[in-house]
Structure formats: C-alpha cells, structure tokens
C-alpha cells in the first residue's frame, strides 16, 4: 500500500520555513539529476556539490519547521510524504533542467537572489533562521560566482551557446517575479522582524543580473509579466514528475530505511 500524505499545520512560521526548505530541496534535486550527465567531469562535480549544499540547507530548514510545528513531522516526512499541492517552492526551481544553458540561467537567477536573501536573513530575530542564513550565504556566494562565470562563457561563446543562453533567459524570466512577492502570512512575520522582506532586494538583484547578462552579451526581456503560484501550492506539471522520482521509495515501501 502506498504511504499517505502527512498533514501539516501551517502556522505562518512553519509555512515560511517550509517555503525556503522546499526551494532548497527542489533545486537541489534538479541539480542532482545532472549527476553523471554533465558536459564534463568538473561540471558534474560542481553541480552535485551545489546540490549537496542545497540539500544540507533543506535538511536544516525542515528540521526547524518540524520543531516549530511541535514534532509530529520530521525532515523526511516533509520531503517524502507531501504531494504537489503541499509543496511551497518557487516555480522557477522546479522547471526542468533542459540544456546546460537553462540549468545555468535558473541557477544564476536563484543564486543571485538567495545570496542577498540569506545575507538579509542573518539579521532575523529568530536565532535558528539567522544561524541557517549565516551558514547558507557562504555557500550561495560560490553558487553566484559559478553560474555567473558560466553565463558569461555561454553568452559570449559560440553562436549556438549564445542562442541557447538567450532562449533560457527568455523562457525563465517570467518565473523571477515570484521570488520578490510576499503574502499576508509572511507580512506579519516581516513586521515582527522574523522574516525577510524580499521586495527591497530586487534593485540590487537586478543590478547583479543586468551586469552579468550584459557582460555575457545577452539581454533581459522587456516583458515584465510574471507567473506565480508555487508559494501557495499551485505548481507547473513538472513538480509532480520530480516528486514521483524523489518520493518513489518511501511511497512504495513506507518507512524503508538503510
């Protein structure tokens, strides 16, 4: 018999923490899909390394969410026993790897954001969140540098790499707005000094993005229409496929350990 979904009591702090944990897990899982398939050995190791950083961040955040929730769930239950509608990650991060340019652009958009976000979160009045942020920002600094260097190499590379990098930017751009959106549940935590308001980070993010994109001889789209939904559990069809792979063992053999 397949394992059933857990129920989660989504208080604002639990929801806030789960959103960040889901971001890290889903992007980490996407990067792990490159393992053994990257264009070269060094890149295979780099993508797996970054995936590992994200997995570590996810574990810390899930464990904290479990503690705040009162201990009825744990990191594994959050990861393995929630269905698509219960996941709260950004739509950007569940988008398929596509070609290497697409993975690079997705990584770049998110890492440049996460780096600013974690640095801001170091000032959270919640000591656990601020400790996780201080740990994570050191890692995100490497992720930004790595993806920036690749984007420049791809954009300013061959005709084909340029074309693919530009196509990736055009395709993923509409998912970047969600990073800076805030709902009522988060607003209260922001006012209390626990959560971080992402909106004021956007100018600096855009600055980093623009300078790298222009050095890469690429361009950002004019279109500012943004897609949203991940934060409230409305996902693209891709997340279900991702979860079916991520969760298959626990769903088929509930409680399996090794």
């Amino acid at each position, binding site marked *: 018999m397949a394992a059933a979904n857990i129920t989660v009591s989504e208080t604002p702090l639990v929801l806030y923490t789960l959103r960040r944990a889901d971001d890290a897990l889903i992007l980490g899982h996407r990067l792990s899909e490159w393992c053994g398939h990257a264009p070269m050995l060094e890149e295979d190791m780099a993508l797996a390394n970054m995936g590992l950083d994200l997995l*570590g961040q996810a574990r810390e955040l899930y464990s904290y969410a479990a503690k705040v929730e009162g201990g009825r769930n744990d990191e594994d239950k959050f990861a393995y026993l929630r269905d698509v509608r219960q996941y709260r990650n950004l739509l950007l991060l569940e988008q398929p790897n596509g070609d290497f340019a697409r993975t690079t652009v997705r990584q770049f958009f998110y890492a440049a954001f996460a780096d600013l976000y974690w640095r801001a979160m170091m000032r959270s009045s919640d000591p656990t969140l601020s*400790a996780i942020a201080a740990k994570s920002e050191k890692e995100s600094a490497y992720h*930004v*540098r790595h993806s*920036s*260097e690749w984007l420049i190499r791809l954009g300013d590379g061959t005709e084909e790499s340029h074309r693919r990098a530009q196509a990736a930017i055009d395709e993923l751009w509409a998912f970047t707005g969600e990073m800076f959106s805030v709902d009522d549940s988060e607003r209260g935590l922001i006012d209390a000094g626990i959560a971080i308001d992402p909106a004021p980070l956007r100018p600096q993010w855009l600055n980093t993005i623009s300078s790298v994109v222009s050095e890469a001889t690429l361009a950002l789209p004019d279109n500012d229409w943004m897609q949203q939904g991940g934060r409230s559990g409305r996902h693209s069809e891709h997340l279900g496929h991702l979860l079916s792979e991520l969760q298959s063992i626990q769903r088929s053999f509930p409680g399996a350990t090794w």
Partner: protein
Amino acid sequence: MVTAVLSDADLRWRAWEAASQVVDPEIPVLTIADLGVLRDVQVRDGRVEVAITPTYSGCPAMNMIELEIELALERAGIARPTIRTVLSPPWTTDWMSEDGRNKLRAYGIAPPQASSSRRALFGEQQVACPQCGSGDTELLSEFGSTSCKALWRCKACREPFDYFKCH
C-alpha cells in the same frame, strides 16, 4: 564505570582528548580539532556533551564524524555521550589550526588562504602549489572532490591539486 570516579573537569579533559583524535573521513590527515569542527565538550550531571559544527550545510561526513566520536569516547570509557550539531557561529577556514594547514600541505592539498576575498565575484586568487611551491597555478573548477575543495593545476610542475576553499 570510569565516569563515576572522575571529576567533571577530568572527565571533560578526557572526553576532549578522545574526541579531538577523531579524523575527518575525507581528509584523514586532519583531526576534527585541526579543522575546527569540534567546537566544545561539556559535562552536565556526569554526562558528556560534544558540540560539532559542519563545514558545509550538506557535508556528508557529519554523520560519520558523529559515529566516530561516539566510538572514540566509548573507547575512553565514556558511555553514551550526547552529540550536538551547532550552526552558529558558522564554521570558517580561519579556525583551521596552523598545524592543520601544514598537515594539509604535506598531504598534497593547498591550505585555505586566510581571509581571502570570497565576495570578490571574479577576484584573482593566488594559490601556491602544494607539490612544488610555485605560485604559477590556475583554477580548473570551483568545486572539487568534496564540498570543501576546489580543483587547481600547477603550471610549473603540471600537477593538478586540491585546494581547501576559503570559507
């Protein structure tokens, strides 16, 4: 049991001695004390509590290190210690001992440079080759065989080498 006859201070000392001998499973020339992963040993009501901190969030060696600490303490006659993972303050390569840096170099891994400019997006780094000492080296990949290392190559002796990333 040994713990019954030792004072808290002696017990703490014995536990630190034992725990500090545990080596990193991925870089076995370094102890967790050299690395700065071992943060603290406390005795509370006769029970030993060891605090460790991960180098990177996802460092897969942490579970192994916990187990090794338990075994090392067990061998020193200290049963069932509590092992706690602390995140704050976050681990930094600045905590690595001088002894640890020398051991790394002798092992063929370039030690982390003290407070280098991690934030400089495309900052130039100068890393000396641990084999021949030449400064004529180049970065091959930001990410190496483990989370904490990058891959470099020496242009003088042509040997590739691991660099323990500044963090």
